[in-house]
């Protein structure tokens, strides 16, 4: 369970989060939908404790990352805003590095790494160095790093950007599978199709606040629109920064 309670955060004069409150329960995919600059990345970074909120709190299973960051980070898998790979390491070594940081070493670690490699269909690239990987291959490595330790919470920051159809499908299937295993998944996006296709619950964020919340169908009903995109535009009152 990921809970965000009245988060407030400003950088200088810019208010990034302005009393953001929502929760992402277990066994559900929660989409954080908002235009560019709405505060999505700031919110996610606050949840895993890289940023400190001015007021309010972000809890993972009731634990605040600002108070006990290590405990929180053990419980989550992160697919960050920027994911750079270590060009001189092979895909397997990168994944193993993050597995050991989560305490998975020795045989258990090797098994977990092997497991995630075959789940993501990465056998062909597993022992190649990351130099020359395509965007899709890089995404798979980053995704594998995020889930290798089987976290109960998964946080993804715009995971599908720059991916082709096949990679997007793999990602969606994986997220659904993890959801069915009881993982609470929170991901941010500004891509409407993806949110509509995947999310059990949508949190629309605009100017650092929750503008609307509910299932995709509920959002459409609330606004009296048939398409989620139109509903979204109506909710935030502008079509700035939206990708169909």
């Amino acid at each position, binding site marked *: 369970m990921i809970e965000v309670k009245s988060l407030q955060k400003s950088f200088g004069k810019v208010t990034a989060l302005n009393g953001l409150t929502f929760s992402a329960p277990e066994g559900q995919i929660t989409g954080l939908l908002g235009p560019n600059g709405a505060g999505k990345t700031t919110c996610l970074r606050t949840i895993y404790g890289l940023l400190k909120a001015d007021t309010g709190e972000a809890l993972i299973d009731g634990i605040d990352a600002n108070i006990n960051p290590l*405990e929180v*980070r053990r419980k989550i898998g992160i697919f960050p805003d920027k994911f750079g790979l270590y060009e*001189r390491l092979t895909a397997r070594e990168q994944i193993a*590095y993050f597995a050991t*940081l989560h305490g998975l070493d020795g045989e258990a670690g090797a098994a977990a790494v092997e497991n995630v490699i075959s789940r993501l269909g990465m056998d062909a690239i597993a022992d190649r160095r990351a130099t020359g990987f395509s965007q899709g291959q890089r995404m798979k490595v980053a995704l594998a790093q995020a889930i290798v330790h089987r976290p109960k919470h998964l946080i993804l920051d715009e995971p599908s950007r720059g991916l082709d159809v096949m990679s997007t499908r793999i990602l969606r299937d994986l997220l659904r599978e993890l959801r069915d295993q009881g993982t609470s998944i929170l991901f941010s996006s500004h891509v409407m199709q993806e949110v509509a296709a995947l999310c059990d619950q949508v949190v629309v964020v605009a100017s650092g606040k929750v503008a609307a919340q509910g299932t995709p169908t509920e959002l459409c009903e609330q606004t009296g629109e048939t398409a989620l995109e139109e509903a979204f535009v109506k909710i935030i009152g502008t079509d700035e920064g939206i990708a169909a």
Partner: protein
Amino acid sequence: MRSPITIVMRKELKDALRDKRSVMAAMSYAFFGPLLMAVAFYVLISQLTDTSDVKIDIEGAEYAPAFVAHLERQGIAERDEPWPAGQQPITLAIAPDWAESIATAQPAKVTLTADFSSQKQRTDIRRVESAVEGYTAQLSYIRLQMRGIDPRVTQGIDLVKHDTATKGSRAAILLGSVLIFILLSVFFSGMNVAIDTSAGERERNSLELLLSQPLTTNQLVWGKALAASAFAMFGGFLSAILIPFIFKLLPLHEIGISIALAWPMILLIVALLVPLALLATALQLFVSFRAKSFKEAQTYISLLLMAPMLVVFGVEFARVKNQILYYLPLTGQHQALLDIIKGESLQWGAMAISAIATVLVSMLLLRLISRMLSSEKVVFGL
């Protein structure tokens, strides 16, 4: 479960060992430093012990064939080829009234024209002078003996020269400059790894994810520092063990220098370099974790490298002597190395204190870095 420090260190070492640039940087400085010394000393020695003929211009040789023959026996010959560009000719001019002066027991006039400030020609000029002086002495002996006088009356004082410079202390001057190479090698060798694990991490956008893993920034920084200082140490180790080998190859005995560095002493040098390697890495990480890119970090670090150079060269050439130098980081190791090489008694206490001081300063720096990495301002460059 393994400690996160070990995990990070192992990963960084594996990563760095695959980076040819880092390995080359660590090796090349360790190799080129001593090699440069070797070439410099080789040139120095061959200049000092040059016994080939000095070729000079002799004007009026026909007036004094005996004198010219004497000069030739002393290895000073008439020059046939022109002087190389940039070299002032050395000219010895014999006056036409030579025979008359000799016959009447007057001083015969011989003029030596040369650039006496020229560093290169100094030994040549010196040899011409002493050959002329030798001939003068012979002449006076003969003149006095012919008049029935003991030639020794001309010697008011018999100056006996005792050179108290031991071979070891002469070597110390030479080795002082070698020490600088050993000390600086730890600063140069780990540099690339230090930059790559800090500014490089930021440049390739992997810092955010790494900081979101279940390990403290302190563990992260220590893991990286240990990996980079392993490289620094490797460079220091290489240059420390290479330098005695190079000295063995050089004909140092020809200029009266003997350097005998026993293996226990070399091991002691290596041990002294260990805390220094940690300090060098801590300084480099401190600077380059603030940089946004590899290039930026390189700029900062090359400025930073001036600091240890200035300190060591300053102490070396200004001949600063103060007991406090023995206790401080960097200067402490420098002084201890000087003592080792001069073969003086070692100040074990001071050595321990400077080692501890070095480690403490490094720990403080690493603590500051981990504080820095906990700050969102530094991490996201806000």
